[in-house]
């Protein structure tokens, strides 16, 4: 089921198995038949840990979504609520419990908090007078969820917002906890590097937690050599740029959630021969995307411009394989051919799917709107005219393009200019408020708090220095056969990944100046290993670094890190962890997803 998790350098299946074991143990605590009431947000992440079959083996007979009102009837002994510790959910649970059918055979209620119990929530249940109704109140520590062989995410949706806007560092506490769990399974990580305020906090908490556990020494041979903690606000530019890898574009246009994407169904209609295609499917096509699919693993991280060639090459291989049947003469040969058929058919249907997706994406990437937008982004990233009002942005506002697109561009201009001049900033703000509504004073204020939008202080613009020192812009990015990470944005090398690359070689000492220009402290810590656990490295053996993005990571950044892992002379393999896989609100690119927008975006059209 999850074999792809164990193919990588670090067997992340161990983590998944540990999570499954704990889940089974909890389920067995509630003896007898069960129904699970799900906080809907959790079903996605849980799906990556356990399928329904596991739950069924432990007598889970029904599953419901948590909703206010009365619980649907279920003839089970136990009702288990799987919820995040949020106050508003407690009120719903209380209502459910109150209105549950008392006439029926008595049922046992349980709560499983994910990832942690909360005093406030239990207090809330007490206030509502239902706390005593629960037989088990437990927590399920699901901090880091394995998404792929080299990718872990906490799927903590609001970490960036909480850390930078609300000054709430609860997510960092969970991060530190998650890293402790990871170390318990994969050994103490001897070296910790970090850049940014949040990174510093997490490292401090980890070291403190380690002191608190001082009694028991971790006897596992360390799998990771280095941990690199990076604050998202050290590199705000990267997530603002349009990702140009295959997976990145799928996310930009359709949004990937919990490893799934929903696509418009028309392209995937099965046309059988002789059948008129009269009833087109109306449900969106849902596809799982991960490295378990051979073809996807091959193309996901390519620049989109190289995907077409890869697909047609694959098509040739597959049709050649099918042609083999004419050569199969003997019974043995035919038998062998037949045994390969399922694999070949899977490959063919995978090819068909990705060809369709690539076509959908191509419609957009070849559009004028996409090109214009990209041109402006690249101008900003190369430092062209970042200090004056941009006419393209102006035109986009006049056309009422989705607000998110405008905000991304203006923020990018601000970041690439180390803040905007008062006049320019005021102009953009006024345009945005007048066109999208004054209540967006709050939106703009949040952007300013997060540093995405700012007023240029008297000091000079240091972005060009950062760009040159870190080689953030590569003029001749090779999209087909890349030799540098800049291929993921067709020229722009993500700052975060450059920092990671430089850390491995030649080391951060070479870029002290630039590190000082970026926000927050940079630091190095060492964790003592018990004698005997020091790795004896084979010659030529790669080192392993866990890169942890605090506040989210984009798919293009993941692609760039994978590229570094694969580079022959890099000597380093990267495992990626994050508080959240950054989702691009599916609104930025052209108009075809307009209906998912906030209604205000299209209000002008409403009138006539």
């Amino acid at each position: 089921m999850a074999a792809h998790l164990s193919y990588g350098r670090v067997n992340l299946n161990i983590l998944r198995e540990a999570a499954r074991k704990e889940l089974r143990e909890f389920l067995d605590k509630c003896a007898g038949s069960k129904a699970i009431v799900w906080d809907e947000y959790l079903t996605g992440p849980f799906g990556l840990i356990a399928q329904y079959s596991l739950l069924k083996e432990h007598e889970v007979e029904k599953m419901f979504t948590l909703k206010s009102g009365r619980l649907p009837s279920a003839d089970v002994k136990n009702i288990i609520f799987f919820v995040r510790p949020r106050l508003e959910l407690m009120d719903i649970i209380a209502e459910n419990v109150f209105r549950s059918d008392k006439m029926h055979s008595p049922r046992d209620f349980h709560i499983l908090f994910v990832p942690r119990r909360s005093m406030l929530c239990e207090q809330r249940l007490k206030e509502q007078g239902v706390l005593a109704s629960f037989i088990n109140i437990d927590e399920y520590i699901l901090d880091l969820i394995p998404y792929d062989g080299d990718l872990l995410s906490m799927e903590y949706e609001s970490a960036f917002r909480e850390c930078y806007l609300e000054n709430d560092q609860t997510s960092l506490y969970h991060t530190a906890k998650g890293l402790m769990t990871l170390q318990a399974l994969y050994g103490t990580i001897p070296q910790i590097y970090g850049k940014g305020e949040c990174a510093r906090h997490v490292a401090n908490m980890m070291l403190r937690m380690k002191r608190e556990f001082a009694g028991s020494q971790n006897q596992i041979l360390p799998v990771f050599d280095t941990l690199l903690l990076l604050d998202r606000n050290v590199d705000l530019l990267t997530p603002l740029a349009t990702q140009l890898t295959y997976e990145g574009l799928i996310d930009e246009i359709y949004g990937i959630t919990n490893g799934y994407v929903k696509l418009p169904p028309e392209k995937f209609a099965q046309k059988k021969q002789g059948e008129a295609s009269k009833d087109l499917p109306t449900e969106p096509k849902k596809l799982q995307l991960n490295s378990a699919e051979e073809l996807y693993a091959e193309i996901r991280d390519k620049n989109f411009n190289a995907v077409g060639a890869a697909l047609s090459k694959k098509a040739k291989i597959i049709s050649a394989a099918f042609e083999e049947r004419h050569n199969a003469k003997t019974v043995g040969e035919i038998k062998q051919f037949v045994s390969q058929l399922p694999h070949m058919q899977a490959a063919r249907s995978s090819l068909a799917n990705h060809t369709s997706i690539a076509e959908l994406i191509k419609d957009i990437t070849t559009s004028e709107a996409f090109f214009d937008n990209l041109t402006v982004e690249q101008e900003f990233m190369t430092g062209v005219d970042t200090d004056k009002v941009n006419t393209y942005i102006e035109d986009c506002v006049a056309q009422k393009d989705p607000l998110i697109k405008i905000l991304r561009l203006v923020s990018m201009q601000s970041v690439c200019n180390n803040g905007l001049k008062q006049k320019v900033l005021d102009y953009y703000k006024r345009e945005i408020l007048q066109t999208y509504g004054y209540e967006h004073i709050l939106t703009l204020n949040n952007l300013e708090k997060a540093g995405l939008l700012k007023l240029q202080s008297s000091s000079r613009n240091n972005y060009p220095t950062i760009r040159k020192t870190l080689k953030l812009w590569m003029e001749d990015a090779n999209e087909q056969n890349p030799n540098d990470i800049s291929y993921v944005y067709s020229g722009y090398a993500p700052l975060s990944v450059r920092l990671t690359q430089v850390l491995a070689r030649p080391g951060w000492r070479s870029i002290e100046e630039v590190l000082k220009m970026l926000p927050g402290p940079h630091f190095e810590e060492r964790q003592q290993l018990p004698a005997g656990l020091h790795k004896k490295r084979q010659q030529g053996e790669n080192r392993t670094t866990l890169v942890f993005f605090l506040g989210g990571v984009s798919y293009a950044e993941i692609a760039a890190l994978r590229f570094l892992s694969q580079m022959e002379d890099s000597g380093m393999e990267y495992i990626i962890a994050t508080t959240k896989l950054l989702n691009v609100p599916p609104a930025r690119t052209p108009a075809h997803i307009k209906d998912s927008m906030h209604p205000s975006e299209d209000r002008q059209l409403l009138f006539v």
Partner: protein
Amino acid sequence: MMKNKADEEDYWNSSKFKAFTFDDEDDEFSRLKESKRAVNSIRPLVDEDDDEEEVEKVSWSGEPVGSKTPLLFNTYCAVIGWRDYVSDWSPEETVQRMQQGKAVSLEKFRSLQDKLLLLDYAVSAHDGNVITAPLWDLFVFPEVLFRELTDRQTALRHFIHYLTESKDQRLLLELLRYLPLSTPGLPLLQYKEHLGIADENKRRDFLKSCLSLPFSPEDSVHVEDHYTLLERQIIIEATDGHAERGGKQEIFQKFPRKASILNMPLITTLYYCCFYHYTESEGTYSSPLNIRQTFKLSEKQFFVTALAARAKLKAWPDVDALFTSRNWLGFTRKKSPLSFQRVVDVLHKNSAPTQVLQDYVALVDDAELRITLAQKHKCHDIVINTYRDLKDRQQLLGYRAKMARGSAEERKINELLNNSQIRWKN
């Protein structure tokens, strides 16, 4: 008011929690001094101009004499309810135990210093869940709590976040009232409350009340504009709704309004007014010119919006008039704050016919761009004339092939090609 009182009685009698008491034990006396002072300094939680008897009083024997804010006490007592057993944990240990989800007693942290110490430990643990718990406990001294919170921005944000999440609007607004206005972000936080007010008149009044808040100079202009806009929308909505129902104004019959104008952005409002109230004099609230003046809209914004609205109505003379300016010789010529390419774009989006489009395509300066646009919008005359001006015989020949046999365009091209006066470049 009486009902209020009765409710309180009810509460104090029925509550299963023991009421809040200050045990006047001697050994604790000195430590409690500060707390006492603090409690004595509590101002009423209600407005000062409220009735005397409504003011909250706490007698030193511990019995609240009457409270307008049972909620606060309720919250406090609820925390006391956590007292599963009495223990001797230090603040640091207590925070750790709370983080591990174990039972703790906060009762021991009785003096203000102790409570604040606990809070500071909780803050340093970075766990929001734990930070909010001691805060609750402190809420018996609202004013002290508020004062202490201003020095503890992290704890303050947690508490505001908690109140927002638990939808305790009343407590939140109380808290906001107590905080010094200089607290960063406070005016905006208060302004944000308007989003929860559905009734437009109440919302307008609320926005008006926000005008006196100490926003930054820029924000203060925006908030004022927001208020002015809503005030105006309410008037326009009432007048137009009336006119529409009256059935006397043709425009509303021909193009019934599909949505209310209330709470729409400014530009949308301008569009609406350009659509329904274009010719009104500057004196009315719904006059586009008045809106332009009041909100200091740039020429470009006004122009684009008016253009789109009039084009939608197919009021081509109005569209034409937007561009007309006279030079000093009295000749009229077309001028636009927008590139003519964008003008064509806007007109095309509003399905302007080719005859209208070609007037504006012809005004595009760049020959190549003009040809591209003309081809896109099938303005054949412009394509042909431009090729003629460029003396490009090859292109003309090519274009002729695309024209229908026997069409006027084909004839025109033939005439040009046969014209011996033109010196073709190819």
